């Protein structure tokens, strides 16, 4: 148990400091760690947890809490939450003081612009891996494609899209 908690702490504190461009950029690494390296769950379970976290309110990184809970119960929730939110929060606190000094420096804009392609590549990687794990029958692939198209083309609220997906899934069409 202690080993598991230690592993969770190591993984998520590292992810905390690597999450440039928001939470969705670290999903592939999170999946690699919890599925491929530690075998705590299947890729399908991971995608399902990501989906549950998307259906819940709040910040979009609540999948972290769910992974901690699945792997090690309440101690897992505590450890993953501390590890995921602690290091980046401390960094924010430290940099807050310096921010006034460097926010108008040209290098800040350069670094930020330079990291945009990285964020795009990582979010695309997240989309590919999560879709690969969750759209494994033609019915589910159709739901994923339809939801992608609808949210790409219109401004419908994501929650409606998720509800429609769950309802279509419930019908069981194209899932056997």
């Amino acid at each position, binding site marked *: 148990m202690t080993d598991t908690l230690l592993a969770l702490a190591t993984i998520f504190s*590292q992810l*905390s400091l*690597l999450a440039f461009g928001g*939470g969705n950029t*670290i999903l592939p*690494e999170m999946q690699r760690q919890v599925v491929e390296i530690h075998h705590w769950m299947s890729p399908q379970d991971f*995608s*399902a*947890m990501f*989906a*549950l*976290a998307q*259906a*819940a*309110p*709040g*910040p979009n*990184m609540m999948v972290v*809490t769910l992974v901690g809970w*699945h792997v090690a119960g309440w101690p897992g929730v505590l450890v993953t*939450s501390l590890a995921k*939110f602690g290091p*980046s929060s401390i*960094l*924010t*606190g430290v940099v807050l003081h310096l921010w006034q000094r460097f*926010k108008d420096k040209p290098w800040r804009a*350069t*670094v930020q*612009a*330079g*990291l*945009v*392609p990285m964020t*795009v*590549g990582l*979010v*695309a*990687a997240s*989309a*590919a891996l*999560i*879709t690969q*794990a969750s759209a494994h029958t033609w019915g*589910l692939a159709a*739901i*994923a494609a339809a939801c*992608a198209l*609808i949210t*790409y083309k219109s401004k419908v*609220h*994501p*929650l409606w*899209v*998720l509800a429609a*997906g769950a309802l*279509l*899934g*419930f019908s069981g069409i194209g*899932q056997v």
Partner: protein
Amino acid sequence: MTTETIITDQNTVRQTPAPSSRELFLGFLMLGLIGFGGVLPLARRIIVEQRRWLTAAEFTDMLGLCQFLPGGNIINLSVAIGLHFRGVSGALASLLGLIAAPSAIVIALGVVYQRFQDNPSVQHMFAGLAAAASGLLISMALKMLMPILKKPLPLLIASLFFISIALLRLPLLPTMLVLAPLSVIAIWKLPS
């Protein structure tokens, strides 16, 4: 105190008094509870327009910092705002307020998921939900990709990240240590 300094003081005073840790906790608790599918637009409305903790310019400034640093924007924002008004205890109050309700809700959903794992209908429902969530992620990736689609250099760098992470399944830390500086230097030095 001269009249002049009093006037200066009045000009620098914000419209409302600085929020207490308790108010910060409750404000972010509400944000966590009602913020479905992206908390940021809602955060601006509550923090700037309703509670008037920050002016629009202060909000934009702080958000700039939070987007620059690793971690979720809204998570960082809660820490920065809490720290700004009430130091470490304010930061803790804001962060805990923000994640308390969503944590409880996702765990409850997780319990339901595990409890009904053997029920085919519920399984199908969760499979549909997961497929829909992946669809949302696809459209998000597409929307981010469009602005750089006709710019060869950013597109190349994004592709390198995609190949390393999604196809080769390389670990993120070494990939970032190599590719992130290259990315910044390339965008900075080379015309795209």
